[in-house]
């Protein structure tokens, strides 16, 4: 890379809890690729779904406070691993271009927010700023023999005008990364279908149905594992996989990786740094199969 890549990093609340491994692996991969992430100082919650279901100005105020924090760092772009955070930060910036709305939001804040900062997802910077070909060059342990489907979830690139990333119905960013890592990618037909989002707690039945369908479909196309880029998707598919099996009478044991975890493995990073052990559905069999394939090839 010619120019060093520097970004403010907004981890999002789930990074401190349920998606700890996404945060760990994102940081580890970026470090390995010499991408500098600096944490947004004293960041707060973006408001997530609950805030915008209450009011748009409240939602934007919660996000704008963080954009302002980034601006104070002297950086002009910010990355977040979480699509939900991303959508909120981007929506706030976009809506606040309207002067009336801007005033309404600033009214809720201690001081008027500087919201000129661009936000991108970790996935987007890896694909667009770093580049697939550069990733391919860094692979030391190809994921030979891993048959994987890429599941993007519903809000990584919607709405198109706002997110400006990848194909709306058939995104390819993770498919392309996985291919570059040496995995066998099977086209996942439900790439942008919703997993049930945050209904896991108040309406578990919804998640059982929607995420169950995703797992059935992944199984149907012969995927050994799914790869995701969203904490909520990953949590529904991984942590609740047992519940789904119980509710639907299925028998899935499908590992659900964050794409950054698989990248880290292919880049030769230790499993521990990538939080592989934090996954609920054990990926051991799948990872062992990759190792066996590698050894076979070497021999």
């Amino acid at each position, binding site marked *: 890379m010619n120019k060093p890549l520097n970004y403010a990093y907004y981890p999002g609340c789930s990074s401190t809890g349920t998606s700890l491994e996404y945060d760990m692996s994102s940081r580890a991969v970026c470090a390995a690729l010499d991408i500098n992430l600096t944490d947004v100082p004293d960041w707060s919650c973006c408001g997530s779904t609950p805030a915008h279901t209450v009011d748009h100005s409240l939602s934007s105020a919660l996000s704008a406070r963080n954009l302002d924090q980034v601006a104070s760092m002297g950086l002009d772009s910010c990355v977040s691993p979480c699509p939900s955070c991303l959508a909120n930060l981007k929506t706030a910036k976009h809506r606040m271009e309207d002067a009336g709305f801007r005033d309404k939001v600033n009214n809720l804040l201690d001081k008027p927010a500087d919201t000129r900062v661009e936000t991108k997802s970790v996935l987007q910077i890896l694909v667009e700023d770093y580049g697939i070909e550069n990733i391919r060059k860094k692979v030391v342990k190809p994921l030979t023999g891993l048959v994987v489907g890429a599941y993007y979830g519903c809000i990584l690139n919607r709405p198109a005008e706002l997110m400006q990333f990848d194909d709306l*119905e058939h995104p390819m960013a993770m498919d392309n990364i996985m291919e570059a890592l040496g995995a066998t990618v099977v086209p996942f*037909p439900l790439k942008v279908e919703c997993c049930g989002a945050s209904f896991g707690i108040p309406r578990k039945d919804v998640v059982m149905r929607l995420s169950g369908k995703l797992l059935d479909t992944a199984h149907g196309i012969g995927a050994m594992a799914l790869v995701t880029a969203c904490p909520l998707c990953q949590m529904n598919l991984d942590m609740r996989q047992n519940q789904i099996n119980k509710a639907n009478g299925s028998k899935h044991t499908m590992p659900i990786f964050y794409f950054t975890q698989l990248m880290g493995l292919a880049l030769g990073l230790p499993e521990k740094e990538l939080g592989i052990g934090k996954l609920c559905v054990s990926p051991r069999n799948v990872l062992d199969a990759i190792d066996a394939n590698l050894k076979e090839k070497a021999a």
Partner: protein
Amino acid sequence: MKIGVFVCHCGSNIEATVDTAAVAAASREFPDVVFATDTMYTCSEPGQDEIVAAIKEHNLGGVVVASCTPRMHEQTFRRTVERAGLNRYLFEMANIREHVSWIGKDRESNTNKSVDLVRMATEKLMRNRPLYSKKFDINKRVLVIGGGVAGIQAALDCADGGLEVVMVEKAPTIGGKMAKLDKTFPTVDCSSCILGPRMVDVAQHPNITLYAYSEIEEINGYVGNFEIKVKKKATYVDWDSCTGCGICMEKCPSKKATDTFNEGIGKTTAINIPFPQAIPKKAKIDPDFCTKIQKGKCGVCAKLCPSGCINYEMQDEFVTEKVGAIVTATGFDLFDWSIYGEYGAGRYPDVITSLQYERMLSASGPTGGHIKRPSDGKEPKNVVFIQCVGSRDKSVGRPYCSGFCCMYTAKQAILTKDHLPDSQSYVFYMDIRAIGKLYDEFTRRAMEEYDTKYIRGRVSMIYPQGDRLLVRGADTLMGAQVEVDADLVVLAVGAEAAAGAGELAEKLRISYDSYGFYMEGHPKLKPVETNTAGVYLAGACQGPKDIPSSVGQGSAAAAKVLGLFSKDQLESDPQVSVVDIKRCIGCGKCIQTCPFGAIKEMEFRGMAKADVIETICQGCGICTSTCPQGAVQLQHFTDNQILSEVNALCRF
């Protein structure tokens, strides 16, 4: 000049928001106006009679009518004043309908504005002079661009009427979209049985010259005398000696060429005749796939051709044709549906277009008339049709209805049942548009007798599930989300303007709408005319149209051409430029700028002067605004006339 002013109510169209009586009253105060009145319908017979009577009674020298746009009724009223013995150019119109009453509701402002427009018209009229047409000879040959069913109809009607016809077709065969259809609605009769004989008629008609696999390169001239440069694209086969025996096609080893005629269902040979009934039935080489042309090896066809007509060195050729009128019948193309990611954007082989399905249904098509899934060749059980793909969809820039998809979908559903009695068809639709004769009965039959399941709603998603496709749509009448397991999905893809329609329009100097469809002269009264004299439209180039309408327009365009050619000479439009020889300094600037070459240099008492050829001048007036001396003046739009309009608007 004694001027009469007639302010039209147009029923309530104008009167509702303009006080026409007040406009008439104000007009009476204008210089030269000796008579002004308001009338209910000026264009009606009593309305016109009133004008004639007033001209006689008040000895009027000119008339102003304040009513609709001159593009509507200028000709009507010119004939009216002519009936009363006035020169037709001693007439002006003020457009107080389209430009006033229909675009604002404030009666005071509208009335005031109307008075302004009438004043402007009277000031111009005071400076109008009688103008007289000249006669000029015409070339009674007609060019038909496009050999689809509309063009064929126009060509045959003109040729049967005794005219010489030149037909230019872009593809290697005529027949257009209709030749690709298996059956036609609502009669379910065989498309090629109807069209085939007419194609043969074109080939055999002594009055028709056909240039297939050719395009229009250049068009010059004007009504009565056009000069057309035709590009005959290289076929690498001498068509004069090719007999269409087909040996070359049988033996050609390169079998991976794109089969355009079959809409990409299957492949064809590098040298091919598009289909057995092609007119002309001649072979042509697709150079991209010919091994000889690409790599210099092979040459099988040249060796085997019994008439020795293969020529790998062939180049494009140009010929010039002179005609007096042009019928444009360039048809339509299918909307590129790959923009619909939710339908797979082309990823799933068993999602096909309606025209591909048509080729599959056709006994002479690539599957021999058997319905087979492109993925595995199996017969489908559940066939799902999705309507309005690329029609009535603003999000893909196609808000209009393509008009014929409802009908052909019903036809295809019926044919599906005929071919595969055990199959079940489902049609996702929004509204069924079946407004032709026996059309609605036809769609009802698809439901009542053929048990086609019609589901009112759009489809949001298609995705593979096992070896089938899951189609997820809505049934808005049930208020539910619905799913169908489909073996084959047929998209009723909408129509859009033919590729290259814009470029051709520029050569023809005709207008097109924002979707590329050509603009007719008037949406109601001039459906096949254009604003360019001598250029007519037929078929779907003007907007999506089914076969009967296209044929109707083909005949209508032919009737217009025959009417135009019923006289030996045409009258020129006298609104042309005239040079004031005393003021002309012979600088030649007008000669350089005239887009039509209508001005030439002449000598007058030893000095160079400009001279306008009246029959060539089209009346644009570019020369008038170019002339540094004001010596060239466009009649009826002179500097004085336009400036009088400016003053009428600004000085009051």
